[in-house]
């Protein structure tokens, strides 16, 4: 009796997952880009010789779920396996090959054992800068958005491509950091490659193919088993967002078949002239993520588990934009795609799907200095110290069929907020408020998560600019099963003067910017919410006393306790009405 084959393979599978998790961890520790280290905006994975993804690290942003998986076959098509040598590394940031905008660089490295290639490691990481206009929606084509690196050699047989590195350094604002990050991908992929070789030695395996086939079969079968638990049929959802300067309509039809889930975005709006467009890879990634949150969430990502989810979108639409349309701020649309998917699934399995939430992150991207002040310096138009700073803020997530939505918590992004104290150390600004936004959640048996309010100004009161990339200012997160809609966001001065939700704008001297982030929608009938929970929300100052009566039919006594009799009465009257 030797170790049972299945157990041996599962040990190797866990080892591969451990290797790619370590690869991802190493990348986060050394990264200069804030979204990589705070948000895990990267991916890391191992591929077999046919370019099939065998294992992938679980990292912070779903945008990478399978976009890297789609990239590796492109490299194999461009650079034949037979010509690859030990020490070769390949690079690209082509948005249409990898993950949807120029800021993400993908590096693919073949692994050799006894002179023979056995597989690949790849990683995709966000860069602190890629030249061009900076990361925002204002570019009119990808050519304005930065340096474009087609698939090419980053190193040949261990020798770095010096010409390419020089080109990169010359085109970005922080050349040392970008170069340092890119070179660290080589080191990390190589370290992971050595682990793979050792694993094959330890378990006496020749290559990855047999193991990969086993992993794919296991994963795919598990996915199909999950799909078969769902009611077959086609479920549609329509979703309208604020967009850059006009509403964006997203339509999706999700078909639950016998052994696949097919998503079709036919009927979605055409691409925008602004950089909020999504390439197909990125659309697939966020759509697959939305589906996988419900269907087989604990099945690891690989070619087998991703295969049963098929995503199509019309060419030229905002979710399958063609070259050279601008794509830099594609997350503004992309982060809503999981909610679009959940909306479809809610029609199939209404008791399992949360209500809609704020979805898109509200990053406060601020700039100070001479470029902000218009015209000659005066008391009201004085020039402050130059700075660039960005901090993340999250609205509320939707109420769930079994629990309230989460207050001020990112979904679908996995971003972690930066501490106000750290932000204030990095730039001459003061965050005067960063607190839950009372009364922003949609009522429900399970209410939405609350949004938050952020107020920020400069230390010396000098004017400053901000890059707005916010949605859900006109539209609202929608409730489910009788739950109320959440509250839309607001972008204004602390004194209440409104700003646009998209584009670069200036906050005048001695004024503060106030961002009021959307609250999540509610799930289920608010009249079914236990009165004690409503009373607790009132006593915690999360909802107003009036709202308890108005939205939930809960009457409170003077001391804040539930007036049981009056509540039963009021709720009965409401139900009849």
């Amino acid at each position, binding site marked *: 009796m030797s170790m049972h084959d299945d157990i041996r393979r599962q040990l190797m599978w866990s080892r591969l997952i451990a290797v790619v998790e370590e690869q991802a961890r190493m990348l986060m520790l050394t990264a200069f880009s804030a979204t990589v280290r705070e948000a895990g905006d990267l991916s890391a994975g191992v591929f077999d010789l046919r370019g099939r993804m065998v294992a992938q690290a679980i990292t912070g942003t779903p945008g990478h779920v399978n976009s890297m998986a789609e990239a590796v076959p492109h490299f194999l098509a461009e650079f034949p396996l037979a010509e690859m040598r030990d020490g070769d590394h390949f690079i690209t940031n082509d948005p249409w090959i990898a993950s949807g905008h120029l800021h993400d660089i993908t590096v693919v490295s073949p692994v050799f054992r006894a002179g023979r290639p056995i597989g690949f490691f790849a990683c995709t990481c966000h860069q602190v800068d890629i030249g061009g206009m900076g990361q925002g929606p204002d570019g009119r084509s990808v050519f304005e958005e930065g340096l474009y690196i087609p698939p090419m050699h980053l190193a040949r047989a261990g020798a770095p491509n010096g010409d390419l590195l020089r080109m990169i350094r010359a085109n970005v604002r922080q050349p040392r950091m970008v170069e340092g990050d890119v070179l660290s991908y080589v080191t990390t992929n190589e370290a992971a490659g050595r682990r793979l070789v050792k694993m094959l030695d330890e378990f006496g395996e020749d290559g990855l193919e047999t193991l990969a086939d086993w992993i794919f079969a296991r994963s795919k079968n598990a996915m199909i088993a999950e799909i078969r638990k769902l009611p077959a049929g086609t479920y549609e959802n329509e979703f309208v967002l604020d967009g850059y300067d006009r509403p964006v309509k997203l339509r999706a039809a999700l078909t639950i078949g016998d052994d696949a889930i097919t998503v079709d975005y036919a009927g979605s709006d055409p691409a925008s002239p602004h950089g909020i467009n999504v390439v197909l890879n990125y659309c697939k990634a966020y759509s697959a993520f939305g589906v996988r949150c419900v269907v087989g969430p*604990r099945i690891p990502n690989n070619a087998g588990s991703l295969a049963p989810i098929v995503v199509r979108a019309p060419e030229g639409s905002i979710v399958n934009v063609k070259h050279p349309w601008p794509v830099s701020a594609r997350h503004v649309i992309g982060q809503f795609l999981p909610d679009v998917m959940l909306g479809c699934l809610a029609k199939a399995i209404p008791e399992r799907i949360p209500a809609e939430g704020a979805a898109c992150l509200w990053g406060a991207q601020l700039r100070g200095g001479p470029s902000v002040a218009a015209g000659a310096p005066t008391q009201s138009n004085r020039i402050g110290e130059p700075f660039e700073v960005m901090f993340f803020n999250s609205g509320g997530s939707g109420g769930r069929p079994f629990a309230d939505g989460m207050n001020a918590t990112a979904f679908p992004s996995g971003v972690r907020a930066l501490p106000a104290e750290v932000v204030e150390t990095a730039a001459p600004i003061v965050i005067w408020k960063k*607190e*839950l936004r009372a009364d922003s959640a949609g009522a429900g048996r399970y209410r939405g998560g609350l949004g938050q309010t952020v107020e920020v100004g400069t230390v010396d009161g000098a004017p400053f600019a901000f890059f707005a990339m916010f949605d859900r200012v006109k539209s609202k997160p929608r409730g489910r099963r009788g739950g109320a809609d959440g509250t839309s966001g607001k972008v204004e001065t602390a004194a209440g003067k409104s700003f646009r939700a998209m584009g670069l704008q200036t906050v005048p001297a001695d004024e503060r910017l106030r961002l009021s982030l959307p609250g999540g929608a509610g799930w289920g009938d608010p009249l079914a919410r236990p009165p004690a929970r409503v009373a607790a929300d009132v006593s915690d100052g999360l909802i107003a006393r009036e709202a308890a009566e108005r939205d939930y039919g809960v009457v409170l006594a003077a001391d804040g306790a539930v007036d049981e009799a009056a509540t039963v009465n009021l709720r009965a009257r409401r139900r009849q009405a």
Partner: protein
Amino acid sequence: MSEKARIGVDIGGTFTDVVLERGAARHSIKVLTTPAEPERAVLDGVGAVIAAAGLAPSDVGLVIHGTTLITNALIERKGARTALVTTEGFRDVLEMGTESRFEQYDLAIEKPVPLIPRRLRFAVPERLGAKGDVLLALDEAALARAGTALAEAGVESVAVCFLHAYANPAHEQRAREALAKALPRASFSISSEVAPEIREYERFSTTAANAYVQPIAERYLRDLERKLAAAGFACPLFLMLSGGGITDLETAVRFPIRLIESGPAGGVALAAHIARQCGLARVLSFDMGGTTAKIAVVDDAVPQTARAFEFGRVFRFKKGSGLPLKVPSVELVEIGAGGGSIASIDHLGRLAVGPESAGSDPGPACYGRGGTAAAVTDADLALGRIRPDAFAGGRIRLDEARAEAALAGGVGKALAIDAKAAAAGIAEVVDEAMANAAREHVIECGKSLPGRTLIAFGGAAPLHAARIAEKLEIDRILIPAGAGVGSAIGFLRAPVAYEVTRSVYVRLSRFDAAALNRAFAAMAEEAHAIVARAAGGRPRTERRIAYMRYLGQGHEIAVPVPLAALAPASAAIIRDAYDDAYRAQYGRLMDGVDVECVACAVVVASEAAAAAPPFAARDAGAPAPAARRMLIDPLSGRASEVPLYRREALASGAAIAGPALIEEDDTTTVVAAGFRAALDSNGYIVLERERTP
């Protein structure tokens, strides 16, 4: 002149371990923990151990205590009624946290509930800037109103947490003073004293936790001191800290949050002591008990420590699902893998082990106490690693038939394999999980594995150490005696030590020697005062550390700083030290990028007064096996008859070639094929892997 005895007491979930050492003699005892009144088990155990040693209370010179009291109060949410007073605009810092989800795909996660509910969080107008400058004066009237509200709410303990208070404690100190008038009986914890470091969520969370446990910690510790005195113990009572040192009662009462997780820290202190004793520069400490396994890095006989710790992960062991505590702590990874960990089949039809544990009641199936699911101990038994009548010194008779039935019936049936194959699978899966956790942890600490010695203790570790070493490519394993009470022994080996950490921001390109000198001097003064009080006249050592990173990175590395006052020219020395540390961790440097220091720490220590009891070497000679057993190798599946030796019968130097077993009361060491075992001059079992080229 008779040397005084020292006693270590470790309260664990099931047992309270008590170890007494005096000269060459060691006595240990396990008594059942008494959760309702933990001091009862302590007093019983201490009484029993001095009786066993034939001593009187007056013969004891020191009691060192580690307790789960703080941990339990936080987990069970049984702390004091606590309020927060904070900066207006930041009432929800404790609740918003990092604004993220710790599990990407799970829509059902629940984030940890803050220790202080919103209705007890009060905001007052005041604001400091990042440099500690006053942007908005503290509003005294609002403070007075808050005081009235706190008194009305019947608050027993108050956390005062203002933004940027690490840079200027004035507002927090003033608030404490004013609020104390309204609440004369309440305890106060202020963030500029508990955790003076930047990052408001972590600092507030730590201060809130300290405030939450302070009243009960004070009651318990003073009570225990009184009862020990009443029983005739006139000696001081010291406490084990999560940072790996011990401290006196007064410091523990002031900062009880530093007592959290002292048990695991004690285990690592034992590994550090052994490393020093044996001159091992690079060690991996591996502690595997009934429920979890803990792995830590020990370099140059100093445990790797971290400035922060995440407590009470609500979602299994998932990072981010607990409360952050800025507490100096031994950096270790803990995973749900122990002798009681239960095997199951996961959602993909794969064999999984843990984190659910059968605990000690009912325990693994082989305990015969009603457990039916196969646990790791059942697998170890079925593989022949444990003699059923010698487990736990013969106190628990293991039932092989029950183990086999559980293995064959549960996971075995699901995978269509027999009991032996299931046992082999369980052993491999749990060893793989521990090896993967160890590897990831070592990377996270910025260290590497090759060349390390594994020091294995805890009841289950010696059974699994050899296979884990193979997976980690470690060639040397050391197994001390007394595996079952490792933490309590570690308390006796831990130095009196205290660590002070503060946020100090300096860029090397604009090196401010004066600022660093001021900060280091103040921290050193605080740490020396605390250690001097507990260490008496014994010599103290001091280490200074700067936490540094490339400008723009988010993760710092620890860089040693010279003790002498820094001069402008010191920048170059510190940069060199940074380069060395960065290169050692990541293999290469970033030319032309500036380096920043974000925090500094001072660690003052005074080595433990007593060394380990000397090992009485026995006559050399070929060891005779006490028995022969069939042992199954999990990877090949081959069974072979191997000799079993009793540890106490081994002679120093005599080598045993694997496969073999070495049995003692607390555990059994598996000497796998390819290893040679010998007893070294300290009485430790040393396993060396015979490398085949």
